[in-house]
């Protein structure tokens, strides 16, 4: 038995005058890189969008560290606050503190919405 022999033959098909196969590859390559680069730029902008939040937070934690070094870490170490209680003759949640520094007025605004409604 004789092995079946196949002859392969391939010739580049003549593509119209507009775009040869090689030209198409070039054009495709250029467009892909254009899309990739602009996609990267947009992603970069989107990612940087929030960086200012982190930077401002870091500014506050830097301030915190500065004050911790001065032995001002927790609010109970603030001498001015203690002076307020002393001068006003009160303490945290004392009578005067309740009157000036606390509120009992949170309003049920959903209720207000309903009061505003009418049947007409």
């Amino acid at each position, binding site marked *: 038995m004789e092995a079946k022999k196949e002859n392969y033959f391939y010739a580049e098909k003549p593509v119209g005058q507009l775009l040869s196969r090689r030209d198409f590859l070039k054009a495709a390559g250029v467009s892909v890189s254009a899309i990739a680069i602009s996609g990267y730029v*947009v992603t970069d*902008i*989107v990612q*940087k*969008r*929030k*960086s*200012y*939040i*982190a*930077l*401002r*937070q*870091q*500014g*506050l*934690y*830097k*301030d*915190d*560290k*500065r*004050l*911790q070094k001065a032995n*001002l*870490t*927790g*609010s*109970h*170490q*603030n*001498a*001015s*606050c203690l*002076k*307020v209680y002393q*001068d*006003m003759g009160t303490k*945290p*949640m004392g009578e*005067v*503190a309740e*009157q*000036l*520094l*606390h*509120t*009992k*007025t*949170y*309003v*049920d*605004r*959903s*209720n*207000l*919405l309903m*009061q*505003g409604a009418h049947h007409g």
Partner: protein
Amino acid sequence: MSEVSKVRTFPPSKESWGGDAAFDGTHRKGELRGIIKINQDNCVGCDTCTAFCPTEAIKGTLGVAHAISTNQCVACGQCLVNCPFGAIEQMSFVDIVMEKLADPKAFVVAHPSPAVRVSIAEEFGGKPGDLTVNRLYNAFEKAGFHNYDVNFAADQTILEEGTEFIKKVRYWVLGERGEDLEHVAHHPLPHFTSCCPAWVKNAETFHPELIPHISGAKSPIQMGGPLAKTWAAEFVWKKDPRDIYMVSVTPCTAKIFEASRPEFNSAYEYLKENNKIPQDTPSFQDIDAVLTARDAAEIFRRKGINPLTLPDEREMETMNVYTGAATIFGASGGVMEAALRTAYFILSGTELSNPDITLVRGYEQDIVEATIPVPLKALNGKVINVKVAVVNGASRNIKEIVKRLTDDKNQYHFVEVMNCPGGCVNGGGQPVRTMGTSWLHPLLPLPLRA
């Protein structure tokens, strides 16, 4: 790269405080409404803002000019700082404050919030996070203000709110009873923070069932107002409280609303009760005007002041003393961390070995949970685990936290809520970043850039 864009403003009109009716929709008489407005001529209907609104208050679909429902709006300004086209405008008190500064009889006080000291530099070419403390005080002084740092009042808030939280723990966790705990019997855990005015209005409007859980301690600014007109007037400045004009300088637009809440005239009530002012004095608010960080920068510009060129030195004054706990209020998780530092000290009798509770920090996670073991001095070192949660941005997370508490109301002792993702540093009154918030800006062709 590091530019900020200009935000259009408008002065309050007569209608801004409402008519004579006791209530109008969700607003009471005298409360400011319409603080944030979408300019119908400039809105292109891109629909970016709706995703940032915590209460779904913005009406309109893609391609249609949007509008804000006054009744649903909590005035947080997140839509404004995130609008890619600068079409959203803010009510501003710049002209009113400028007039007061020109009045020789008025004792005008600047009351700057923590987050303003890390953002105002951006309005003068600095970078986000540039720390301006003494330079800011000096700038205010040059502009004709006296200084009273909100951070000082924030320490006061922690002492009040921390005491309140400890009482709640004693009553609800340790089962103690007593006369001094009667008050908290009606305020069960979980304890919610009250510093964020947008969150408070959100809860009042959409989750009234949470009202008894919200701390009765006022926000730092609203503690500063009455303290300025009572304590500082008498013991520090030695001034007639009626001449004191309190201007809070905030990263926030919801604070404009908060200052107009009718019950926030407690200095007036106190002074009248104690015969320190004549009985026929007309009522005045604790905070007379609110400026955003952008507004304060505008005042500096009008007066030809650049805070960045001023000396960074100053003697420490009583009115500007504050701790690290106070300054971190401006970052998400900060109120929690500050409260824990003091609550831990009071409950355990010792300072936290490491005061940096980094677990609750950050800006990318929606809800952060942590458990802090606290040994109790009164119970010979018995340890309780304080379970806390930080809600970082209201727009997606309020529903989730309510859902979790519906499932198990005991899963947290303390919940901090910040309307704006990242906390006040990202507030609606902060400088608007072209590279940050208004992020389409660099993609626009030059002639279209505002």
